């Protein structure tokens, strides 16, 4: 069973994502803000992080820079699951790669089954040690 850290500020959306991921046999730790998420990673390193960029007090990119500053957390794959449309992100593919972002999902157009697919694909690549062939 893989461990997923979900950083999602909206309680109702988080509940839906947790249910969907648990139905697919994943274990989920939910945090709604960056500081709690960092504490959570410190306790247990997740296999994948699902990250919303619009979070309280921080933005998701700041959070990513912070976790990537710790060597032991540099390899955790991150899937952006965000309300921010991709065209507004203004992040180049090289930045995606540098921050270890393996997939980007625009929430309003992402079905739960697509989220599961993305998580499982990421886990497969991660366990197959193929992360260097970043999809972005």
């Amino acid at each position: 069973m893989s461990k997923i850290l979900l950083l999602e500020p909206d309680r109702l959306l988080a509940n839906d994502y947790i249910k969907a991921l648990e139905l697919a046999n994943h274990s989920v730790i939910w945090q709604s803000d960056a500081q709690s998420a960092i504490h959570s990673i410190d306790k247990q390193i997740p296999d994948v992080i699902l990250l919303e960029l619009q979070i309280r007090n921080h933005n998701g990119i700041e959070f990513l820079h912070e976790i990537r500053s710790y060597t032991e957390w540099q390899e955790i794959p991150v899937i952006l699951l965000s309300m921010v449309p991709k065209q507004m992100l203004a992040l180049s593919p090289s930045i995606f790669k540098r921050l270890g972002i393996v997939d980007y999902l625009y929430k309003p157009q992402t079905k739960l089954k697509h989220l599961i697919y993305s998580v499982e694909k990421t886990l497969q690549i991660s366990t197959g040690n193929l992360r260097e062939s970043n999809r972005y």
Partner: protein
Amino acid sequence: MSKMIVSENGDFMASDNYRLLEALAEQLKLPFMHISQHAELIKKGVEPSFDRIETLAGMALELIDGFLLSQQISLGQLDLALEPVSVSSVLQESANKLQNIAREYNCEVQLHLGGKYNSVMAHRESLEAAITSLGYSLIESQGGQQKKQDREIILAAYRNGYGVIAGAYCKNSEGISKDAFNQAKELYGKARQTVPSLGHTPNAGIFIADMLLRAMSSRLRFSKHRQYRGLAATFSPNRQLELISV
């Protein structure tokens, strides 16, 4: 309905109404996403919660109605007939409307009605829509907080030297301030998070409330109530009504 203003050099600038529409569109994605995802989960065998669907759809409609009311007033399509309104009964009504959505977000809506005060001159429907939109906005933004006390939303009315204050408050102490709110007023419709220290949404409900209150010659301001911070409007009590009640 919405206006685009053309500047001297021909650039289009969004009017307040248009900016509010953009913020509302962004805000409404949330309830629709919840409903859509809940339907997807039901197909996967999760027990349906019809109450949840009804509540989310109902609140989305409240927000749309509040927006339309604010537009009708600002475009002069609706004359506000001000009447003596009991602020405490309006708050009570808004609190009732917010109970179900608060339950979904694991929040608690409390009413603090301090002391005795007279009716104020207001447009009841607009005031109720303003308080409900404001409360909904705070519930959405505070629902993700971990501590129970941070998920308390207070609808309060009390009297001070300026008049009767009515508004919505929460415990998130750093989130709402005078500066943060003034900055947010410049940002709605442009930024995706108008008050990043408060929450993750564009807070369209706050600005709908502000527009409705401005139509009643009031406006939302940063306000403190006991240990809570929030946004509230001041209403001057009607002197004639005061004389009658004496």
